[in-house]
């Protein structure tokens, strides 16, 4: 009888911590805890888990399609000010027009062009996602590497902090942070709210990897050569833990985009009239019966982008996964 977690250490998250895996489906950020790292691992192992010895590692066409889509969306968002788009704020007489040659994605309740709003909204949504995950990776990464390398009391303390963060439903935590910032629902607030939620999962991931690498020979070698701790962390451990974090943060950016949508549905995302994908989807939900495109168009773009990030992140994880080479 196999021990359930024989091949994948993340299977039994409850054993490492009673809080593990706590989170919130709504934002799915909670999934990034070790419980979900495993899910993603599992899903990542789609084609390699039977044979396990795929001859050559390639990123494959799926990756390139996904990456291509994401680059397209990101470029559109970056170049929004110089693209020949209709105004995204000015109302027009064309109210709730379905998608057509003139309005690719249709128009909303006050006649604004949804296509240009999706492009401009992408700017905000992506900015929030990048900012929040960058914040999460820097803070969570530091916590993880410090507790994984130094162990002892500092580890107990830092991981305890992460457990507490994880014990709140993610959306609830994000909501509290927005409330904490008062009525200032700007980019910074929203990024901070989502960023704080992503700290604990990143910290766990980095800690787990640090634990593994600090046992490796090259670290022992560096230590016996008299390298200082700071040098070992930066030169020996950091380059190794950065790859799992990288592939993870690609997926996490997708989750952050979804999280922004979740906040928007509670009316707590970036203040209108600034468009965000989540805000647009939420705005259109009262017109589903006669003008479904108001919600569905941004929804579709959001979905494709999140899917692309998932697929790309997954491929990259597989590509860099050293264990697969054994």
């Amino acid at each position: 009888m196999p021990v359930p977690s024989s091949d994948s250490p993340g299977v039994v998250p409850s054993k490492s911590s009673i809080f593990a895996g706590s989170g919130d489906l709504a934002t799915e950020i909670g999934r990034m805890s070790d419980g979900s790292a495993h899910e993603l691992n599992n899903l990542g192992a789609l084609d390699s888990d039977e044979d396990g010895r795929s001859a050559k590692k390639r990123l494959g066409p799926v990756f390139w399609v996904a990456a291509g889509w994401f680059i397209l969306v990101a470029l559109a968002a970056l170049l929004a000010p110089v693209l020949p788009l209709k105004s995204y704020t000015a109302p027009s007489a064309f109210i709730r027009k379905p998608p057509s040659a003139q309005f690719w994605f249709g128009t909303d309740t006050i006649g604004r062009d949804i296509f240009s709003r999706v492009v401009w909204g992408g700017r905000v949504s992506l900015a929030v996602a990048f900012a929040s995950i960058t914040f999460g990776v820097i803070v969570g990464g530091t916590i993880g590497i410090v507790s994984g390398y130094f162990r002892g009391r500092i580890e107990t303390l830092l991981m305890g902090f992460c457990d507490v963060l994880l014990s709140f439903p993610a959306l609830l935590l994000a909501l509290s942070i927005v409330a904490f910032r008062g009525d200032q629902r700007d980019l910074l607030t929203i990024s901070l709210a989502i960023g704080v939620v992503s700290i604990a999962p990143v910290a766990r991931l980095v800690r787990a990897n640090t634990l593994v690498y600090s046992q490796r020979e090259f670290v022992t070698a560096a230590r016996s050569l008299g390298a200082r701790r700071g040098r070992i962390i930066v030169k020996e451990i950091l380059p190794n833990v950065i790859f799992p974090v990288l592939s993870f943060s690609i997926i996490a950016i997708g989750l952050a985009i979804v999280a922004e949508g979740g906040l928007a549905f509670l009316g707590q995302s970036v203040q209108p009239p600034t468009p965000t994908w989540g805000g647009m989807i939420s705005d259109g939900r009262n017109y589903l019966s006669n003008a479904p495109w108001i919600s569905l168009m941004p929804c579709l773009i959001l979905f494709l982008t999140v899917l692309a990030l998932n697929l790309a992140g997954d491929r990259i994880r597989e590509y860099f996964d050293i264990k697969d080479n054994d």
Partner: protein
Amino acid sequence: MRFVRKKLVQLLVVMLCVTFFSFLLLELLPGDTATTLCAGAGGTECIEQKTAEFHLNDPMPVRYVRWLGGVVTGDFGSSARNAQPVSEALKQRLPVTIELLLYSQFLALIIAVPVGLIAAQRSGSLFDRGSTGVLFLFLAIPNFMLALVLILIFPVRLKLLNAVGYTPFTENPFKSLGSLLLPAITLAAAEMATYMRLLRTDLIATMQEDYITMAKAKGMSPRHILLRHAFKPSSFSLITVIGLNFGRLIGGTLLVEVIFSINGLGKYTVDGILGRDYIPVQGAIVVIALGYVLVNFAVDMIYAALDPRIRHARALV
């Protein structure tokens, strides 16, 4: 028995930590019970009076201990906005969320288990790849999007089911399940993918075991082997993850409850935070955390019952 006792102590410690930190967190938020109560009416006088009434000037640890004392005796305080006792509100709303949870997990499992079994049996087949692909798609769908699409298809286009509202189970079980069908599907979609993958991976691993080869050599039918020999030992991680999800989702139905206007625990919590009415939030967090911890405890127990090695292992906690 020592195993059980150890787990129980751990459970208590966790509860204390969670309640303390949630108290601290809510403390940091702007607004308090007094200002919420006096919104509109009264002025500084009212605020002073209420501040005294709720002992809001006491140091935070003192208030925490006082609040904790109340909780232990079943008194969670009352909402500042409508004066409804929190315990009463929780009693009304908890069953709704629990029904939604059970329902969604049930839906997820009745799809995931058969699909997982077939996919493992014929790993690498078209069915295996197809189901994996479709479920991967499910995992990428944000649940608010799925909710919108479901609302668009069923209530709006087909005029089936209601988009909002809830009928209590005790009133009319059939109607109740109907009213929760869309939210339950919304919640189940992402879980389905996880469960199916988990079961499939573990089954494939189990099928490599010697005793399966033995069973095959004895000439047992593949179906018999799959269901009688491989299924139980492969269901450990599934059980764990179901348990974890269950605990996690007690606080995670929040968005779905808001979208479908279901007066469950999640909506209660959100209303509390948005309305700067923190006593109900505090109470709800206790229930969410307790649910989470208890489910974990139950999972550990089931686990121990299924696998005797766990009961005696030392390095588990």
